[in-house]
């Protein structure tokens, strides 16, 4: 690691690696630090991603694809099942990744593009000068050193401490953290091509339970619930254990995964003098699905491009980096996050009976093309008793 870089990236998840790779490809000197001893491990993810989105960043490789999906099944609180076939879901169909290998591949690509990578190296404080970020203090195996940078990219995931040390409040409200537990289970009866989502207050209050296939008899079986609903005896793990005991009593757990996902609005501002915040650290997870891999890669790449522009103009002030903030907000991901936050807020307030009603009528629909808007339109036509709820939802979508 050098004493100074053009760009210093904190965290080697998908957001950090895409930032580091892009910045290096643009000819900048780049350092990327990861506090864990191994990139990608332990896994904190259910590993689902859309095919089209993924291909924007990396060529799909069977080395890190565990399952190629054909359909999704949504199960209502009363057990009614609704299938979304791939023809209907369009680009929504995707892969289940093997993130240990995937994340490592992305870090590798950053290194190959020319970035320096250091693992077991933690940023412990920013270097601040005249109210702007000038680098970071790094701690690596008992050694502390200062590394300067024109732009620091904070890609430090859900913890998001780096930006906090820079004076930005990154606290996730309790009701908007999805507290999650997941088992990678094997020897279970599942359909290897179908992702399953179970909804309802008994199964997963203000969240959902998922079964994401990872091969013939193997799947990520996990749950996320609102932090508001979590407490002694009713934590994410308690719900998961109850489900697994009844559904997969003979399954074998070969990995135990926990984590937190934000479903709040993104940070009000994701750039500051000498600092850009990307991925989970910026709270750009899709609040409806909890998916954040694509958004992390998207914001990571965009951050590196903006940093390169700023550096070439010799101005890394907040004003010079703000185009990053407005660009992602105006992009499809920014718009989706804004819209899905409202849908999420709407759905978590629905009692189970209304959710059952919606899924009953949706299950009987024969939609040519699945989109949330189409779904709501069709449902309104057929389901006069839900007209008030659905009108509210439609208003949000338009």
């Amino acid at each position, binding site marked *: 690691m050098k004493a100074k870089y053009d760009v210093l990236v904190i965290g080697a998840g998908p957001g950090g690696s895409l930032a580091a790779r892009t910045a290096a490809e643009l000819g900048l000197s780049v350092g990327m630090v990861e*506090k*864990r*001893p191994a990139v990608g491990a*332990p896994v*904190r993810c259910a590993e689902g991603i859309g095919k089209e989105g993924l291909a924007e960043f990396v060529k799909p490789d069977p080395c890190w694809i565990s399952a190629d999906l054909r359909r999704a099944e949504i199960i209502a609180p009363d057990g009614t099942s609704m299938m979304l076939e791939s023809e209907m879901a369009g680009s929504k169909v995707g892969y289940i990744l093997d993130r240990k290998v995937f994340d490592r591949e992305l870090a590798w690509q950053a290194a190959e593009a020319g970035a320096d990578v250091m693992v*077991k190296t*933690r940023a412990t404080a920013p270097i601040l000068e005249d109210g702007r970020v000038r680098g970071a203090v790094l701690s690596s195996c008992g050694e502390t050193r200062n590394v300067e940078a024109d732009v620091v990219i904070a890609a430090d*995931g*859900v*913890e*998001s*401490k780096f930006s*906090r*040390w820079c004076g930005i409040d*990154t*606290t*996730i*409200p*309790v009701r908007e*953290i999805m*507290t*999650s*537990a997941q088992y990678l289970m094997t020897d279970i009866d599942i359909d290897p091509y179908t992702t399953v989502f179970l909804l309802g207050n008994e199964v997963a209050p203000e969240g959902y339970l998922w079964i994401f296939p990872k091969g013939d008899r193997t799947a990520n079986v996990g749950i996320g619930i609102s*932090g508001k609903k*979590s*407490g*002694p005896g009713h*934590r*994410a*793990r308690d719900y998961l254990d109850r489900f697994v005991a009844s559904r997969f009593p003979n399954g074998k757990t070969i990995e*135990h*995964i*926990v*984590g*937190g996902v*934000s479903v709040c609005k993104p940070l009000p501002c994701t750039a500051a003098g000498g600092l850009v915040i990307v991925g989970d650290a910026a709270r750009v997870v899709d609040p409806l699905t909890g998916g954040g891999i694509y958004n992390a890669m998207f914001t990571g790449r965009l951050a590196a491009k903006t940093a390169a522009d700023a550096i070439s103009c010799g101005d890394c002030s907040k004003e010079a980096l703000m185009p990053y903030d407005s660009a992602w907000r105006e992009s499809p991901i920014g718009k989706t996050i804004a819209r899905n936050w409202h849908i999420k807020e709407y759905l978590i307030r629905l009692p189970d009976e209304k959710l059952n009603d919606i899924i009953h009528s949706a299950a009987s629909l024969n939609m040519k093309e699945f989109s949330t808007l189409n779904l709501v339109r069709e449902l309104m036509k057929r389901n006069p008793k839900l007209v008030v709820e659905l009108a509210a939802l439609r208003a949000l979508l338009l």
Partner: protein
Amino acid sequence: MLQVHRDICGYCGCCVSVCPEGALELIDAYLAVEDGCTGCGICAKVCPLGALEVVDEGKV
């Protein structure tokens, strides 16, 4: 004060993200409680495993 049950903790960082004081820091697999913890218990509520407990000073 806040007690971390290390045999339960899965070092996931979920608690770190909700602490209003920024008093938690994950050092790889070790969750450190730093100065500034007010004992509010928010982190203990959200932990997916129940590894955190706010305990009475006297009892520790």
